[in-house]
């Protein structure tokens, strides 16, 4: 789920400086954009596979198994969230929160992963979730099909890294995304990996001119990595409430800086 919360400072930077970069976009972007699409396609293939197993478990009434599969299944979705703006309708049906609906959790329209999460953790049950599971799987498959034939606008890909970091800074950091399961750290893993992938792919284009910028960005990604690593548990992560106040502050600071810094990436690549 993407919420490009307005982290004012970065948005302001954008308003103030767009146009100030005389930089022209270059065809050197073709390679990273193509690579990124292949990355997304691989994530989506994995998402379809994992969502199939997850929704099968939900439909079979296997609460424990479904709970176990929830966070790992979401990982691939969270990794492609930088480009969720390209499919806002499916993003809503796959990953919206109860707050988007008039009657919140009780709203029959409340769909997707978080509707299932609510059932599994708050009700400890899969009752009534079969149609939600079917819809989720068909949405995820539709997403895969749609992405396959979609030409990625380069400014959306490059801008997506910042947009996602802004969302994490503005909302996700509070633990709102996975509020019933508290599996937020898994989502963070996906979000940071997904955003960093974009930076890594365009890195060769700016390595010389923007060495300092890249150094700062890398340092912040590393801070995130080190912090998340402390909470590693097997293949995944402990629940979000285990995060200490200090570490939460460290994460928040790193994400805020990333959001601000990455909001200049489009301009640096001539894509504003």
């Amino acid at each position, binding site marked *: *789920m993407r919420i490009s919360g307005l982290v004012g400072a970065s948005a302001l930077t954008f*308003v103030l400086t*767009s146009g100030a970069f005389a930089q022209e976009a*270059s065809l050197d*972007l073709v390679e990273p954009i193509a690579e990124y699409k292949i990355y997304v396609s691989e994530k989506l293939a994995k998402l379809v596979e994992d969502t199939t197993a997850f929704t099968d478990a939900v439909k079979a009434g296997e609460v424990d198994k479904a709970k176990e599969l929830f966070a790992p299944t979401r990982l691939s979705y969270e990794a492609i969230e930088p480009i969720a703006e390209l499919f806002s309708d499916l993003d*809503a049906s796959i990953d919206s929160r109860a707050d988007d609906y008039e009657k919140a959790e009780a709203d029959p329209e409340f769909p997707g992963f978080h509707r299932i999460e609510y059932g599994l953790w708050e009700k400890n049950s899969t009752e009534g979730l079969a149609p939600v599971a079917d819809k989720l799987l068909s949405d995820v498959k539709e997403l895969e099909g749609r992405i396959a034939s979609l030409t990625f606008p380069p400014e959306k890909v490059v801008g997506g890294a910042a947009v996602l970091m802004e969302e994490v800074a503005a909302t996700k*950091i509070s633990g*709102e995304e996975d509020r019933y399961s*508290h599996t937020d750290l898994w989502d963070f893993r996906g979000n940071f990996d997904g955003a960093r992938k974009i930076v890594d792919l365009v890195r060769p284009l700016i390595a010389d001119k923007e060495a300092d910028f890249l150094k700062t960005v890398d340092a912040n990604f590393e801070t995130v990595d080190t912090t998340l690593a402390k909470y590693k548990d097997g293949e995944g992560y402990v629940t979000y409430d285990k995060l200490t106040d200090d570490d939460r502050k460290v994460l928040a600071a790193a994400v805020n800086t990333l959001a601000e810094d990455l909001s200049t990436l489009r301009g640096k690549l001539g894509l504003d």
Partner: protein
Amino acid sequence: MSSSDPQRAGGPPSRLTTIALIGAGVLALAGGGAFYLASQRAVRPSEPGTIAVRVGDKSCEPMDLTVPAGRSVFEIENASNRPIEWEILDGVMVVEERENIAPGFRSQLAARLKPGVYDITCGLLSNPRGKLTVTASAHSEAEKVKPPLKAFIGPLSEYKVYRALRSNRMIQAVGALSTAIDAGDMDAAKSAYAAARTVYRHVEAVSGRIADLENAIDPVATYLAGREQDPAFTGFHRIEFGLWHEGSVTGLKPVADKLEADATTLRDRLKAVKFEPVDLAGNAAREARRLAEGPVISGDNLYANDELVEFAAAVDGLEKPVSLLVPLLAEASPEMAKATTDAFAAVRAELGKLSGSDAAPVIYSDVSPDARKALAADLVALADAIDRINPALGLE
């Protein structure tokens, strides 16, 4: 899409419950939330020409906006009693957005917009959307007939992805072919062969120009001194000769292994090919002419006789790069965009007419010289249509 913003105090009761549920979130306020709220206040004085949009509980004010193409700055005021998002939507794609604008706050958003009609969101998902009309400017009109270089990055990337995926599939299919030959399974070998040829045809417009590989992968006996006995008779057609003419897999294993290695090299070489914007159409037109002059007239698949199936795949391969330019072409010249689409349809119709049915496919040796000429003429007409694309996009 929006979600709650748990950091906001004084929301409706359901929201407070939410906050209680996610105690973790409240603690985070010290970090992200505080920064976030502070930043929302930091709205600069409006730039001249800033477009004001007030979002109330049920709608935007105004619901109908018109701006000229180019860069516009919007200032969104949240006059409703809950946090809102404001998005400019082009179909399902969010062009620009600001989310979590707290009640009573304003937020600015800059967007560079092309002419067209967009939706704007106005708070709750269930609220009606407003309309944003972007009118043409002298600059946007000029860009239609000469799109900036960055307009080609998406199409070029997409074609690169296409080549990568096709050539990977070719490696898989040739691998399956090799396995089937090893197992002496004629049926499996024939179907793997057909699958590999289909994807080969998809990328042939590019691969056909990598001469050394083309000579290893796709030589036709007709052009070799010793014909089928020539040591240079390798690759696909050698296998085709074995499977269909000799009806045996004898001696094909090393050929298949070599083909597999060449397919891997082909993938890497295709990956390294650097395309310029002119190459998307240029390459497709050239390949259409090559097909018209050579394979369509004289036939390529002398033993399997399934050219009609392969030509259909080749046309798909021509259409891929061209289709990526069609959205730009439709802006520059809607008539030309239609003419291009029509030319593809004409070739497909001609192929369909010749191909017979699935149950009784027509073999190419039964296609008369006149029918071949007619198909070739359609391909030439297609090439002519494709040739008009680059000048229309200011590329030549």
